Structures are given as C-alpha cells and as structure tokens.
C-alpha cells in the first residue's frame, strides 16, 4: 500500500477485522460440515425446511435451528434469503465505479457512498501500481446505462469527488454467476 499507514480509525467497516471462525473448532464439526453442505444450495421448499435439513444430515430440527442461529450470530452466515439475478429483474446495466481517494479519507468517503440507495456494494481494496490506481470500489445496478451514468455523476458531486481519479467499468457480459461452493 502506498500513502499513509493504515489506522483502525480509517475503517468504519461493517465487519471488524478478519476473525475467522472455523467450523472445525468445536466438537460438532463433522455434523456442522454436513449441514453446511446440505443447506448451501438452498433451503428445502417444504413447510418445515429445518426439520427436512435435519433429516438429511442426522440432526434434530432444534439442532439445525440452533446452529443456523449461531452461524448468523457469529457472522459465518451473513443472512438467509433470496439471491436475485439482477439481469432477470431488468437491471441490465451493472457498473463497477472506482475512485482513487487519499488513504486518510477513504473510510469517510466509503461510508458516504454506501448511504446511496443505488450503491449495492462498497469496498476498500488495494491499489495495484500503474495497472490499477484505484482504492475505493462501488457496485451500481441500474435499468440502463444512462441511469447508471447519471447516478455516478450525482454520487461524485454529492461526495465531493470531482477532482479525484475515477473510472466506470460497465460489465459487457457475465460468464459465470454462482455462489461459492463449500464441500
């Protein structure tokens, strides 16, 4: 990283620093992994899905519920719910908008950008020399390119980023879209 040394105050991040919680650190690791494998492709579409998952992996409904609640509490699972394909919903324009923001400001700017409803993701990532001078990344999904371009202009002005280097990388094609697979 170039620039100033990183300080904790620069990171008003949603998640505290990496604190891996290994599934294998407690006595039920084997059944945890079986449950993880059973649930990763989706919840069963039956009235009692957690009982059905339990039946598949040899746990009671109460045990499945207790584990999923624990995984949510510890952040191993961010949430349970729907994973939508934006394109199918008519959100055909998808842009990765990147800025080169001084390290001392990146946390504050990131938090401001993230407050905009059109911003679906906002991360700080490392710059990579000449090939990639940007350190703040946002994803914006919109119904068409013109809408997204107008949103980028509005964000830039609202956050006082006009003078900072930026790039808007529209996606041209999506070749592979799926969640990570855990076996």
């Amino acid at each position: 990283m170039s620039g100033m040394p990183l300080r904790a105050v620069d990171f008003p991040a949603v998640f505290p620093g990496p604190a891996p919680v290994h599934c294998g650190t407690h006595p039920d690791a084997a059944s945890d992994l079986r449950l993880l494998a059973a649930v990763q492709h989706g919840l069963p579409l039956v009235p009692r899905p957690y009982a059905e998952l339990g039946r598949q992996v040899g746990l009671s409904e109460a045990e499945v519920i207790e584990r999923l609640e624990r995984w949510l509490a510890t952040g191993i699972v961010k949430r349970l719910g729907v994973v939508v394909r934006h394109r199918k919903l008519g959100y055909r324009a998808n842009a990765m908008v990147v800025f080169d923001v001084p390290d001392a400001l990146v946390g504050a700017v990131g938090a401001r950008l993230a407050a905009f409803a059109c911003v679906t993701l906002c991360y700080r990532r490392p710059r990579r020399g000449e090939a990639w001078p940007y350190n703040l990344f946002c994803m914006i999904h919109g119904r068409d390119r013109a809408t997204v371009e107008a949103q980028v202009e509005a964000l830039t002005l609202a956050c006082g980023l006009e003078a900072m280097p930026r790039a808007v990388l529209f996606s041209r094609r999506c070749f592979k879209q799926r969640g990570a697979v855990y076996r």
Partner: protein
Amino acid sequence: MNALERTLINGLQGGFPICERPYLAVAERLGLTEEAVIEGLRGLLDQGILSRFGPLYHAERMGGALSLAALAVPEADFERVVAEVNAFPEVAHNYARDHALNMWFVLATEKPERKAEVIAGIEAATGLKVHDMPKLAEYYVGLRLEV
C-alpha cells in the same frame, strides 16, 4: 413477474426467519398463505430470477478467502481465457468489463492458502498476470432493489 413474486423478492431481501414454520411466518408478515410463499419461491427459482434461496456465507469467517481479481486479456484470446479461468471451481463470478483490465472475477476458497495456489494456476493456464484485490474494508453490503 407477478405481484406475488415481486412481494416475495422485496420482502425477503433482508433475510428469512429461523423457526419451525418459516414460510408461514413470512406468509403472515406479507399477507399471503404458506403455500403461496413456497410455490412463489419455487417459481422464482425455476425461472432463474433467483439464483439461490438460502444462506449467504461470509467466506473469511468460515476460514476461507474471498477476493476480487482482474486480468488484462488480449481481445483475440478472450474466449480461450474465459474457459481457462472458469474451469477453476474457486471462480465464483466472472464479468467482462470495459477497461484495460477487462476480465474481473471473484475467487472464493475454503482455505486461505488455497488462494495463492489458484492464482498461480490461473497465471500458468492463461499466461497472464492476475491482479489480486482483496477487501480491506467493507462499507455496505445489502440489496435494496425494489422490483
């Protein structure tokens, strides 16, 4: 997409309950029947509007690694490189984008040390340098799409 499907997508982006009859709990909250919720979700999955209905994992907290990586691919080699990169099961999303770095993909590995192996493997297979850009801070994660 019908009204039921829109209601489900808007109503479930924030999460799904963990209780004995979660579909019933959702149905009561959204003014639907349990059966309508289950069949509506099945329809959304069958149409491909939902890629998944279930848990969203936090790879790093599971002890794995998650990163964004980019390649600068000569236009003539693009199809070949797409196939080579997508052959790795650790590649979760792959997009062509308008930039000199024109291929962007997510790497998700179960063990942190596997990331370097996958990057080395992609570099060996494609002959191109992988620019790895792991997350340093996260300012927001969520979905606020109204449909």
